């Protein structure tokens, strides 16, 4: 960028957010240039911290006029390089917009700003014995960013994705206009539902910040039943685990129904790959259930016992098992610093973690896992895979958390190659990556129906005519 231009742009940005909240200093930009993923570091040209919706409108209006890229940023905790600027521009840090605007414990709706963290929301909800589907991410991560990026959490089996908890939203378009989707569009105080109107919130979910900046988000929250019961089983192969999870999910008794491979059950994930002891099962599952009464818990237990017997009768290797205590805590006491610092993910690798994180039909989990195992062990990486059912539907999350030594460019590239190869195998099996890095977006688009790509481009062009919002991330 031309020096003179840089000075003028910074001056304009400072006039909007104040001098203390706008900078082009290299050391500040540097701290936004990388994350924990394999994505190559790239610097923004400017960093601004907005504190009001009006400031965001002014920034986007200016950026759109000058055709300067804008990358919205909250916690920077994703593992797909989603806020690493592909084309420089303005890094729009939203962490100071961190108000819980409304928390209605009767209507079970919260309205939050983008900088509200999971830790902050958990603390506020705990006063009312309420909960949200906490992800296995850092407590400092943004609730809003996770939800609009189709993140997952501990209530997925019951309520679905975080994005399915969204009830309304306010958004600043790339052109600076303020828009609303859902009930808050009709009545500014009504944040209860995105239905029955056209689901325009879909224009801003899963777009990786490519269509606007969500400035307020309504989400559903839920009561916390007092009785926790976790059913844990293990088995020798992924096919048996799939069979058990499919069976149990039919009864819809779980908040979270997850299977993890032996490598993911370790704290931390072994890096580099180490073979599983022959005597250990290859798969574990935890099925988290919450009940209001003992009778309810007993009913859940009865169903689970029935499923277990059925699976054993089929001749599968499923058996009730002990799940490592720390790992179990890490997956139920959320938000968690244990998984938050990715202690159980990348502690042994050092500095780096990425994933093929996908939504995959459940009946493809086993073949894809077996393929992933081959690919990952071939790269001397652990097949640390998780499978989770979504809302009693027979598809869900299939992902492998891959730690690597980020200090080494060679080991980072090895992980990248393995992960992209895994992603291709999953796409071939009908899976779809979520929060995808650009490498994944390219693979998706190669396979996409021409009509999908045309529509994607049309909508993007309509909302962001100058392609300023997080450009390059969608691979189009």
């Amino acid at each position, binding site marked *: 960028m031309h020096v003179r231009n840089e000075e003028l742009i910074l001056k304009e940005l400072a006039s909007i957010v104040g001098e203390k909240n706008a900078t082009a200093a290299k050391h500040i930009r540097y701290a936004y240039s990388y994350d924990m993923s394999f994505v190559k570091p790239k610097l923004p040209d400017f960093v601004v911290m907005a504190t009001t919706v009006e400031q965001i409108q002014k920034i986007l209006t200016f950026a759109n006029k000058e055709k300067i890229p804008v990358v919205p940023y909250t916690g920077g905790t994703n593992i797909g390089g989603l806020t690493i600027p592909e084309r420089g521009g303005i890094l729009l840090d939203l*962490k100071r917009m961190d108000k819980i605007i409304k928390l209605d414990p009767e209507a079970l709706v919260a309205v939050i700003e983008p900088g509200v963290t999971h830790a902050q929301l958990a603390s506020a909800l705990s006063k009312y014995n309420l909960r949200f589907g906490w992800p296995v991410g850092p407590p*400092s991560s943004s609730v809003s960013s996770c939800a609009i990026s189709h993140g997952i959490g501990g209530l997925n089996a019951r309520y679905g994705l975080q994005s399915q908890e969204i009830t309304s939203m306010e958004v600043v378009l790339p052109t600076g206009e303020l828009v609303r989707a859902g009930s808050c569009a009709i009545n500014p105080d009504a944040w209860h539902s995105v239905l029955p109107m056209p689901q325009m919130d879909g224009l801003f979910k899963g777009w990786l910040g490519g269509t606007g900046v969500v400035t307020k988000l309504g989400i559903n929250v839920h009561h916390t039943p007092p009785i926790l019961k976790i059913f844990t089983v293990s088995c020798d192969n992924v096919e048996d685990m799939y069979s058990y999870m499919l069976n149990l999910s039919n009864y819809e008794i779980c908040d979270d129904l997850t299977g993890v491979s032996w490598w993911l059950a370790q704290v931390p994930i072994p890096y580099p790959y180490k073979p599983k002891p022959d005597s250990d099962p290859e798969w574990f599952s935890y099925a988290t259930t919450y009940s209001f009464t003992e009778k309810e818990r007993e009913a859940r237990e009865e169903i689970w016992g029935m499923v277990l017997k059925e699976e054993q009768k089929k001749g599968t290797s499923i058996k009730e098992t002990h799940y490592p205590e720390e790992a179990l805590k890490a997956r139920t006491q959320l938000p968690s610093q244990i998984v938050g610092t990715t202690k159980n993910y990348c*502690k042994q690798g050092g500095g780096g973690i990425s994933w093929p994180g996908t939504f995959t039909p459940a009946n493809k989990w086993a073949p894809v896992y077996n393929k992933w195992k081959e690919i990952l062990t071939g790269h001397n990486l652990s097949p640390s895979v998780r499978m989770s059912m979504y809302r009693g539907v027979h598809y869900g999350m299939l992902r492998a958390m891959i730690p690597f030594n980020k200090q080494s460019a060679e080991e980072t590239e090895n992980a990248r190659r393995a992960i992209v190869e895994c992603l291709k195998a999953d796409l071939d099996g009908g899976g779809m990556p979520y929060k995808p890095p650009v490498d994944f977006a390219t693979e998706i688009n190669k396979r996409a129906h021409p009509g999908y790509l045309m529509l994607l481009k049309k909508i993007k062009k309509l909302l962001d005519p100058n392609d300023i919002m997080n450009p390059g991330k969608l691979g189009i």
Partner: protein
Amino acid sequence: MKWNISKLKDLEHKIWRCTACGTCKVAYDYGPPTKSGEICPAGVEFGFEGFMSAKGKIAFARGILSGELEWDDELLDAIYKCNVCAGCANQCELDHKPYIPEIIEAMRRKAVEDGAGPMPTQKVIAQSMRDYDNPYQGPRRVRTDWTRPFKKAKQPIKDINKESAPMLFYVGCTGAYNLPVRDVPVATASIFQKLGLDFGILGEEEICCGSTLMRIGDAEGFKRAAESNLEKFKWLHENRGVNNIVTSCAGCYRAIKKDYTMCEDNDRMLEGITVIHTAELLNNLYKEGTLKLTGNLPWKVTYHDPCHTGRHLNKFKFDEDGSVAWKDAYLETSEEDCLYDIPRELLKAIPDIEFTEMDRIRANSYCCGGGGGVMTGYGDWATKNASLRIEEGMNTGAEHMVSICPFCHYNLNQGAQRIGSEMKLYDLTELIDRVL
């Protein structure tokens, strides 16, 4: 004496253990009930990720080591805008966790070595240390001004340079030179006298522990002060019968207990000497029955955990030979040296006192904002941050805040004045002295 003080390059491997996950940015306790809050004073004030917690400082360290970042005024300013409070380190679970304060200070040491650091106002500290052996530019004779009430009452404090005593009361520069904080050494000595303890002070011969220099990256200056002290302590042990060094200063306590151990001769020089904080000594005496709290104090108080008597004293367990996890893996933290329970036990033992807790306490205590050279380098910000802590204390309904650190004492009282609060920070010794 030989020292093992890390250079930034020595810590490079640790620096690369950080994932940039950002868990360090928020004080968080699952509970239940779940609690969360801000933990990084620099993050609160300046906001950009580089300022924020360990994640940001590690980014600077990586950039400096790789050569992608070069010293300029703004970078220098950014690495000194940190209290090195270790609040961020308390949230982290990765292998570099134990080294986070060390990494930040190693960056500052590199800045000093490269001729860039410290900040101009902090250079005054270094000069003052050379001229006066204290960071306050105070003449040596002023160091004993706080003892005047004792002389006046004809209860002079023993000069340990001349007379033997088993206990050295190491006063520290802040208590001696910082006028609003002089009540701390006065109360400490008063308690010791009331208890009939045989103790002495170095008086004008006392020199700074060197903590402030270490915090701003002046390792050479720190070593000079520390070596001088170690030699003095050894002399006192051999010639004056000193076997206990007690201090009411959290900074001195941290420096002697922790920073001095980086000297290979530390164990030899301190052989036969126990270093103890006044709060710990008083708690021991209370438990023995020697300290009897007979008066009453119908105050409603809350307690502020200083960083230097808290999480800075964490002990970390590593996998030294790789037999548990892998070589040098961080395994767990022990808080056994941290003074969390002791001051609370003493406070609660004071008749009629009503004790209430703030949200961010113990290992998640929110720094007063004065440490890490910030009070000297960025006085306004230090006071502003202290106001935030005072407000947190006021929200508990407490009338006053208590602590065991002269730095916190000064800064938090400044913070209270800034917002016109009637809340006052007292040292624990001031309360104990009133009821003894």
